[in-house]
């Protein structure tokens, strides 16, 4: 039987399949080369980049919780210059499609990072992290309201011709409104969800378990929330939605496609299984073959709402 066509266009970036890595769980991509050829993925989304290298939060950055984990890394990263100088050529060598996730403490910083990255011809897209819960300024403040999202999206839009993805925070009341604001301000796609703000304390030592006190929850624990928000966002906007949150298997990924996502990103699952992304990709291909579905487009958004249980 013919190979199913898994290609999809993500706001100006055409990818050969809808399985992408999630920012912050995939390093700069190359770290996964011992496990498989990362150019097989739809795209590699790298760790959040800031203008200057960022030291991140003090130790005590992760804690495991029921079927999930909290992190407060604080966006430790090598900065945009070193990324462009050292990492980009190697990603080009391996032939990977790659996307830069960016953040700033101010609008100007977001803009400056986007400007610099726009000079990199091989860069597939820019994903704006409008939602990191682990830095005091920036991110979250912009991501929490439709007005903030519109302002940030508009600003970055004017500084880059690259496909622009805006990554949304789940820590909001009305995700559909936020998604519409991003679309209205010129985003080419939205991705969601980032982590959900959470907390863990130790009842004996009477202390918080993270140095930052609160952190971002990820992993299978957040999947139902992520699925619901992906569904709501997909109904609200016309630009592509990239679903993220707790995806561990091909079945999980297919559920996101069913509720309207054009692609998915796989995050925390990479930690237990470094081959998670390709395992999911292969599982998805097998499913389409079995079900004799010729193309991703024939399945995507096909959630049956009539006679729901």
């Amino acid at each position, binding site marked *: 039987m013919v190979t199913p066509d898994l290609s999809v266009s993500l706001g100006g970036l055409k990818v050969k399949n809808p399985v992408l890595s999630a920012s*912050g*769980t995939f390093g700069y991509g190359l770290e996964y080369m011992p496990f498989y050829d990362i150019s097989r993925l739809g795209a590699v989304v790298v760790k959040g980049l800031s203008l200057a290298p960022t030291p*991140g939060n003090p130790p005590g950055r*992760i*804690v*495991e919780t029921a079927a999930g984990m909290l992190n407060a890394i604080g966006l430790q990263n090598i900065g945009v210059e070193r990324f462009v100088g050292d990492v980009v050529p190697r990603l080009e060598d391996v032939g990977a499609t790659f996307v830069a996730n960016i953040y700033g403490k101010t609008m100007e910083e977001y803009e400056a990072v986007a400007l610099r990255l726009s000079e990199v011809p091989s860069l597939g897209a820019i994903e704006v992290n409008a939602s990191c819960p682990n830095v005091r300024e920036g991110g979250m403040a912009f991501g929490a309201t439709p007005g903030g999202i519109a302002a940030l999206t508009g600003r970055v839009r004017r500084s880059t011709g690259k496909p622009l993805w805006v990554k949304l925070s789940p820590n909001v009341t009305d995700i559909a409104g936020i998604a519409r604001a991003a679309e209205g301000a010129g985003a080419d796609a939205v991705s969601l969800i980032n982590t959900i703000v959470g907390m863990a304390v130790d009842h004996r030592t009477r202390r918080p378990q993270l140095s930052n006190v609160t952190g971002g929850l990820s992993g299978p624990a957040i999947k139902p929330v992520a699925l619901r928000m992906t569904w709501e966002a997909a109904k609200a906007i016309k630009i592509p939605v990239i679903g993220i949150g707790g995806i561990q298997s091909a079945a999980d990924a297919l559920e996101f496609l069913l509720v309207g996502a054009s692609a998915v990103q796989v995050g925390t699952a*990479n*930690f*237990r299984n470094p081959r998670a992304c390709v395992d999911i990709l292969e599982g998805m291909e097998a499913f389409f073959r079995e079900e004799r579905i010729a193309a991703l487009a024939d399945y995507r958004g096909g959630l049956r709402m009539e006679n729901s249980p």
Partner: protein
Amino acid sequence: MTYNPTRFVTGRIVRNEGRGEIFYRIEATIPEPLRFVPGQFAMVSGWPGNDPLLPRPLAVFRSGGTRGKGKIEFVYKVVGRGTALLSGLHPGETLSITLPLGRGFDLEQAGRTYWLVGGGVGFSSVFPAAALLGRRRNGFEMFLGARTRDHLPPKEWTPGGKAPGRTHFCTEDGTAGYHGRVTDAVLERMRELSPEAASRLTILACGPKEMLKEISTETLKRGIPAQVALENHMACGFGVCWGCVVTLWEGDRTAYRRVCRDGPVFDAREVVW
């Protein structure tokens, strides 16, 4: 040094036995034999379901086997949910293992005498170092500390053979060997050394943080090089999540470095305690 590419493999459990309810030793077959540097580790999981979600770091204790049929061993202490679930797995069941990971002990310096110090389950990364030095007929002494005799590693696990090493067992309650903390035994033995012998000494240590800190302070005072194997909570184990950082000195500044990738073995002088 040999190139040891990291891989993600399925292991099939051959043995998983407890000793005195304290230490377990698990042996599994893996597709190919593994070359590793003592002090390197693996990320191991095998329990079904999502709780715990993350694999657990364990030092590579032994490896062997032949082409097409590798063998790997870990020793562990049950301290929480992950290790408890691990202890319940049976022969024939599978493990997911990413290995080898991290930077191990530097045992490549010529003309050194090594002292290996293991506190608690820290012997798991010290024994492979002893075994390697023994094979090379490089002089070493080993200091093993525990609360009581029952908390010491079983004698038959201790690398022996023709190794020119000497092992000092230490217990805090005096039920076996030296009565007192392992660090005190190390310091006492150090006082017996001639300055010339002391100048050839390198110390490698793995164990509780307090022990490592004391070893570092005391060796620093005396100008003796020391390498310490640090621990931290880990999510990935191969350098991508930046969750496992510790604070290190870099010149007169400090920086956050990953235990899983930049360590777990660090020069004692670098560590900010």
